[in-house]
């Protein structure tokens, strides 16, 4: 597999993972902390964003991209 193919595959797998995390249903049950449906939806998306942040952060350091990520 060429270098370009590997990078494309890597990018696609990251996109697929991000989409998978985004498309999962609400993490918090309805009525959580007496919040409305809209707030629970936002809170779930916030939680998923935190997972993406953590995974990206780990990826940046594992692949030693911190110089490029500035």
């Amino acid at each position, binding site marked *: 597999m060429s270098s370009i193919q590997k990078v494309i595959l890597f990018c696609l797998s990251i996109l697929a993972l991000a989409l998978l995390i985004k498309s999962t249903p609400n993490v918090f049950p309805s009525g959580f902390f007496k919040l409305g449906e809209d707030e629970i939806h936002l809170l779930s998306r916030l939680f998923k964003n935190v997972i993406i942040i953590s995974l990206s952060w780990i990826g*940046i350091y594992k692949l030693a*991209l911190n110089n490029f990520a500035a």
Partner: protein
Amino acid sequence: MNSDKPWTNIHLVFVPSYLFLFGIFQWDSLDFNKIDLWSVVILVGYCLSTGFSEELLFRGLINSLLLQKFFNLKNGVIKCILASSFDFGLVHLFKFDKGVVGELTQVIYAFFYGVFYGAILLRTNKIIPIAIIHGLNNFVFQFDLLSTETTEAVIESQGLVSQLTGAMFTTLLTLPLFIVGLYHLRIIEREKKKTNLI
């Protein structure tokens, strides 16, 4: 992230301010009595987390990986930023809550944003201010969700002509970011050539 590099060209971070002003001017049609503080706090947290997650994933990880591999190609920086911005645009396609016109517009303006943020990251050397600006920008434009109908309901009530007009307006509004981004990418390419010659 990398504290060794100095924060340069700080003024570039404030280029999207004109969008903030535009977004805030749209708030005058909102009914603030319907909005409670707790919802605003959650929305701020959500928007900032979106800013950080998208910046770290696309600019921090994908962009950096592409630059690490293809930086030395002819126009390598421009190609890498365009590719990662295209990825960034594609991710915005998958919500399916804004109708066909809305989704395509979202891909285009996310692409414009991607080029701008990618370029200014390379010019400023700091990802955190960009993530904060990205989050605040999302907040300004999503604030109306707290007091109005859901996006799907709004889209259903609009005709195709008004959807197209809105799409064109949004594209034109974000076009300056794309132009500024391309301009700075050209500067980076020129500096890269000079460094290679030395």
